[in-house]
């Protein structure tokens, strides 16, 4: 599948997890795309950890506001029902459990719901930014990522080998191959992408997948 189609497929599936009125924080990159695929009738409030609620659409070229960017530093707009605050309030919203769902990418996720997405030893360090707070604080953590690394090795593993972002916080993993729920007893395969075989998902996953053969949905 071409890269761009994979990303669209993942974003579209993640969007189905969002409900009308949800407060949602979308990470940089793929997660940002989710906003383009909301189910009709679903309106969400996007939280920007640099200090406001109500991220609106990208501004037209030439209408960027120097004081209004998202957490990735890209120019955005703010909805008329939006509101602004300082960084302490922004993270009080996150840490205090007032964000319903956050969608983030990952380097590795393991079967205990541990997440590694901020640092690869030996590679240049960029810092955790707001990721550690988001993963600890938001009510539901959805990892939106490609199922495997570029070299084909699994990103979903038995135990993370990279430095953790947070312990046992991931709730749901959505890739171009599958939807996987993280529970106490391990990883539950919930849905498989159309055209993908169960064996393919199992082969691409580095941890056991619990599933009841007959009742896996597709997306």
């Amino acid at each position, binding site marked *: 599948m071409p890269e761009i189609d994979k990303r669209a497929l993942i974003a579209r599936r993640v969007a189905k997890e969002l409900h009308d009125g949800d407060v949602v924080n979308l990470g940089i990159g793929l997660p940002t795309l989710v906003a383009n695929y909301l189910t009709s009738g679903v309106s969400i409030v996007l939280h920007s950890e*640099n200090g406001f609620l109500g991220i609106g659409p990208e501004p037209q070229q030439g209408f960027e506001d120097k004081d*209004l960017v998202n957490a990735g530093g890209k120019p955005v707009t703010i909805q008329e029902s939006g509101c*602004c605050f300082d960084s302490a309030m922004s993270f009080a919203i996150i*840490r205090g459990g007032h964000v319903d769902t956050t969608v983030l990418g990952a380097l590795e996720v393991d079967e205990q719901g541990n997440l590694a997405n901020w640092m690869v030893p030996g590679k240049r360090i960029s810092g955790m930014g707001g990721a550690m707070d988001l993963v*600890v604080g938001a009510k539901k953590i959805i990892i939106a990522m490609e199922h495997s690394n570029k070299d084909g090795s699994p990103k979903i593993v038995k135990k993370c080998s990279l430095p953790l972002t947070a312990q046992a916080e991931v709730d749901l993993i959505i890739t171009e191959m599958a939807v996987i729920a993280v529970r106490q007893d391990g990883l539950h395969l919930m849905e498989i992408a159309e055209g993908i075989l169960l064996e393919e998902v199992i082969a691409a996953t580095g941890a056991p997948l619990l599933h009841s053969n007959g009742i896996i949905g597709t997306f």
Partner: protein
Amino acid sequence: MVKLCTAEEAVKDISEGMCIMVGGFLGVGTPDNLVQALVNQGTKNLTIITNDSAFPGIGVGKLQDGKQICKLYTSYIGGHPDSGKCMENGELNIILTPQGTLAEQIRAGGSGLGGVLTPTGIGTVVEKGKQKVVVAEKTYLLEEPLKADIALLKAYKADTSGNLIYRFSARNFNPLMAMAAKTVIVEVEEIVSAGAIEPDNVATPGIFVDFLVKGGKVYAGN
């Protein structure tokens, strides 16, 4: 009480070894004229507390460009290649801290609190060397308060008493740092008369502010 001055006058008491907080998030809400004045002054060996090292040539990134920093408390250095490089080769001591923790540490410093008890960072490298405290059977990291000698901040408007308002995402760390430094220097786009900002709309009380610098509208990167 608030004094008006130029960017050059404002930074002239900044000397080697001082701890400076700088507002802004990837350059947005950073006092560009104050940073530029500090770059021109060339003061080195600074401890900087700031959300991120921005980008080369932009915001706090300029202090990184000129190697004026010896210690950096920050949450993100991914925009400035030199930060990571200098961290690796040991030239620069970088204390990477989760963004929400950094915000609360600064707030605690300005609020006379002894620290922050946060669940963020538990089970990660962030907990290394830190006290842990158990409250109601849950474990929290104790993160110590942060204070500074000087804060270099950016607001949208000030009144003549120093009361500040901010615009959109340019607020970020500025109001927190205004409470946590001995001397607070604020660059603003406009200075209005007392009473022109409604008491209910003031985001930072003027009592925190020592110096105001009229900065004009400076766009990031200029």
